[in-house]
C-alpha cells in the first residue's frame, strides 16, 4: 500500500465529508435552535441538485447555473418554512417526523412531475480532467473544486456564526432556546433565515455532487441518514461538531471501504475476509456512532451544557 494511495483515498474521504458537512450544518442548526426534526432536509438537497442541473443547462454555464440554484433553493426552503414547518415548532416530535416524512413523499412526486425521475448534469469541460498534485499523483480537478468549495463554505459559515450579530443570535439559540426566545427580537425571521441558509447549503452540496452522482428522485434519502449520524456524533446544534463529525464519517467510510477488505485479508482466511470486509466496511460509520454514543452520549461537541 503506497502513501500516494492512502493520500488519494484521504482526499476522497475529505471530499465526501465536506459535502456531508454542508448537509449536516443546516440540519444541526434547525435541531439546535428550533428543536425540530426535519426529515425533508434531504428533499432540499434533491431540489438543489435538480435546480442546478436545470439552470446549468439553461444558462450554458456551470458556475452561473450553480450560483443561481443556491438562492432558488434557499427561497424554496424559506417558503417551506413559512408555509408548513413554522407551525410544527411547537408540536411534538412525532408530528414533526410525520409531517416532514409526508413532505418527502410530496417533494419526490412533485419533482417527478416537473422534471421526471432523473436529470443528467455534466461537469464543466475545463475541470473534467486530472490535475497533477504530486509527482505520480494526478487527482480529478473537479473533486479538488468540491474540496475547495466545501472548505470555503465552512470558513464562511464560521465567520457568519462566530463574528456576526446574527451568528451570535444563532449560537445563543442553539445553546439555549429559552434565552433566544426571551430575546424576542424577530425570532421568527431568524428561524426563516436559518432555514434559508440550511437550504442554500443543501443546494451547494446537491449542485456540486450532481455531476458525480446522478440527479435523481430519492437521492436525498440515504444521505440524510448519514447526516443524522454526523449530528449524533458531533452533538446537536454544534457547527463545529458537524464539521468534525462529517469529516470523520467521510474519512471512516471511504478509508474503511478501501482498506478494510485488504486489512482483513492480512490475518483472516480469504473467503471470510472477502465476506466480512465489505460487510463491516458498510456499517463502519454506524459502529462509530454507537461508540461515540457510548462514550459521549451528547456527542463530541455538545452545544448545550
Amino acid at each position: 500500500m503506497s502513501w500516494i494511495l492512502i493520500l488519494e483515498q484521504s482526499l476522497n474521504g475529505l471530499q465526501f465529508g465536506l459535502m456531508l458537512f454542508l448537509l449536516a450544518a443546516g440540519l444541526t442548526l434547525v435541531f439546535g435552535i428550533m428543536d425540530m426534526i426535519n426529515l425533508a432536509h434531504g428533499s432540499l438537497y434533491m431540489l438543489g441538485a435538480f435546480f442546478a442541473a436545470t439552470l446549468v443547462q439553461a444558462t450554458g454555464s456551470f458556475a452561473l447555473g450553480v450560483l443561481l440554484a443556491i438562492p432558488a433553493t434557499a427561497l424554496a426552503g424559506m417558503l417551506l418554512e413559512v408555509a408548513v414547518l413554522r407551525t410544527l415548532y411547537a408540536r411534538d416530535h412525532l408530528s414533526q417526523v410525520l409531517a416532514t416524512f409526508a413532505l418527502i413523499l410530496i417533494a419526490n412526486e412533485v419533482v417527478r412531475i416537473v422534471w421526471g425521475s432523473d436529470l443528467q448534469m455534466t461537469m464543466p469541460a475545463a475541470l473534467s480532467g486530472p490535475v497533477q498534485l504530486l509527482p505520480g499523483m494526478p487527482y480529478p480537478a473537479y473533486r479538488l473544486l468540491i474540496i475547495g468549495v466545501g472548505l470555503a463554505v465552512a470558513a464562511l459559515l464560521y465567520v457568519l456564526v462566530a463574528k456576526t450579530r446574527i451568528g451570535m443570535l444563532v449560537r445563543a439559540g442553539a445553546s439555549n432556546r429559552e434565552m433566544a426566545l426571551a430575546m424576542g427580537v424577530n425570532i421568527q425571521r431568524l428561524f426563516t433565515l436559518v432555514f434559508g441558509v440550511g437550504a442554500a447549503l443543501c443546494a451547494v452540496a446537491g449542485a456540486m455532487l450532481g455531476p458525480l452522482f446522478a440527479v435523481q428522485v430519492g437521492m436525498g434519502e440515504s444521505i440524510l441518514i448519514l447526516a443524522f449520524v454526523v449530528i449524533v456524533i458531533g452533538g446537536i446544534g454544534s457547527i463545529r461538531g458537524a464539521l468534525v463529525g462529517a469529516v470523520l464519517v467521510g474519512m471512516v467510510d471511504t478509508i474503511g471501504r478501501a482498506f478494510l477488505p485488504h486489512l482483513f485479508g492480512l490475518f483472516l482466511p480469504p473467503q471470510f475476509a472477502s465476506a466480512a470486509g465489505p460487510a463491516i466496511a458498510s456499517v463502519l460509520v454506524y459502529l462509530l456512532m454507537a461508540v461515540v454514543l457510548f462514550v459521549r452520549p451528547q456527542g463530541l461537541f455538545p452545544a448545550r451544557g
Partner: protein
Amino acid sequence: MKNRLLALAAGFAFTMLAASAGAADKVKIGFVSTLSGPSAALGVDIRDAFTLAVKLNGGKLGGLSAEILIGDDQFKPDVGRQLAEKFVKLDKVDFLTGYVFSNIMLASIPVAFENKVIYVSPNAAPSPLAGKQCNPYFFAVAWPNDAYHEAAGQYATQKGYKSTYLIAPNYQAGKDSLGGFKRFYKGKIADEVYTQLGQLDYAAELAQVRAAKPEALYIFLPGGMGINFIKQFVASGLSKDVQLITPGFGSDQDVIRPVGDAMLGLFDTSHWALDFDNPANKKFVAEFEKEYKRLPSVFAAQGYDTALLIDSAVREVKGKLDDKEAVRRALKAAKFASVRGNFKFNRNQYPIQNYVLRVVGRDAQGRLVNKTIATVFKDHGDAYVQDCAMK
C-alpha cells in the same frame, strides 16, 4: 368503524368486477422493466423497440391484437416481483418479458414459472438458469450473461494485455461477467473488485486501480453506473495509462449520449451492431431512428427481437396460447429474421450466435457510433449447457 369496513368491501367488489372482464382473442404481454432512475435508459430502449415492433406489425403479435401492460420496477427487486405477481395472477398475461437486470428478474420470474407463464428475456440471462436451474418457461433472447465477457477476455488475450483489473457490481450478473472474462483471458488478473449495485461514485475504486497499475481495465457496469464510471475514469487521468475495455452495452448509445467524445476509440464486444448488414437490421435501425429521433442501442435491438420472437411463436401455434408445450416448441424454433442475423436456441433455450469486436468511432454524419471490426466468436454457446437436464 362499520362505515369504513363497508367502504373497503365496496372497494374490493369493484376491483373484482373490473378484473374479471377479459377478452379471449388477443395476446396479453406483461412488460416489467427499469424505466426510472439512472439506469432507465436501458429499459426505455427495450420498451421503445418492443412497442415499435408491435406498432410496425399493425398492433398485433402473431395475428392477434396485442395488449401490452407496462410496469416500472424502479430498479428494485421487490417492486419488480410485485408487478410480476400482478401481471401473472391478476391480469393473467400470456407472456412476461422486459426485465433488464438479472437480480430483479431472478426475484420476479419464479412467479411466472409457478403459474406456467413463459418468460421471454430481452436481456438478462444468468448462468444458473442456463445450467442446473434451466427452465422450460425461460427463453433468453439476447445473449448468455457470460458471453460478452468471454468475447472480451478473448480479445484482451489476443491483444496481449499482460495484466487486467476487473470491476463489476456485486450481483449475479456481475459474478457471471467476470467469470466469463477470466474463462478466456490468459493474462494476469491485477485485482477483481465487486462494487455496490447502483453505486455512482467510484473515486475509491479508481484510486485502487491507479495503485495497481494494470495494463487494461475491464468493467461490467451497466446503465448509470457505467456512465458515471467512464466520466470519472477520464477525470482521474487514468485513461492515459490504462486501456479500458467494456462489454458491448457498456459503451453503446445509452452511454455515448451522456459521456460524449471521451468514448472515442473504446473497444467493446457485442452480438449486434448498428452496421450489421441484413435487411431486418436495416429496417429496424431506420424505423427506430424515425420514431424516436435517436439511434438504437443493443438493448433496443434485443427488445425488438423479443417482440419478433413472440410474434413468430404466436403465429406458429395459430393463437392457441393455452397449449404451452406448442408455444414452447414454436419459440424454440425461432422462425424469424433477427436483427443480429442468424442465431438458434441451444437446448437450454439460450442462444448460439456470433460475437463481434466493435470500436467507438464516427459515422458518415459525424455521430459517435460503434463500428464492427472483427468476429471474435462464431456460433458460440455457453459453458453451462451440459448441466441442463432439458432436452
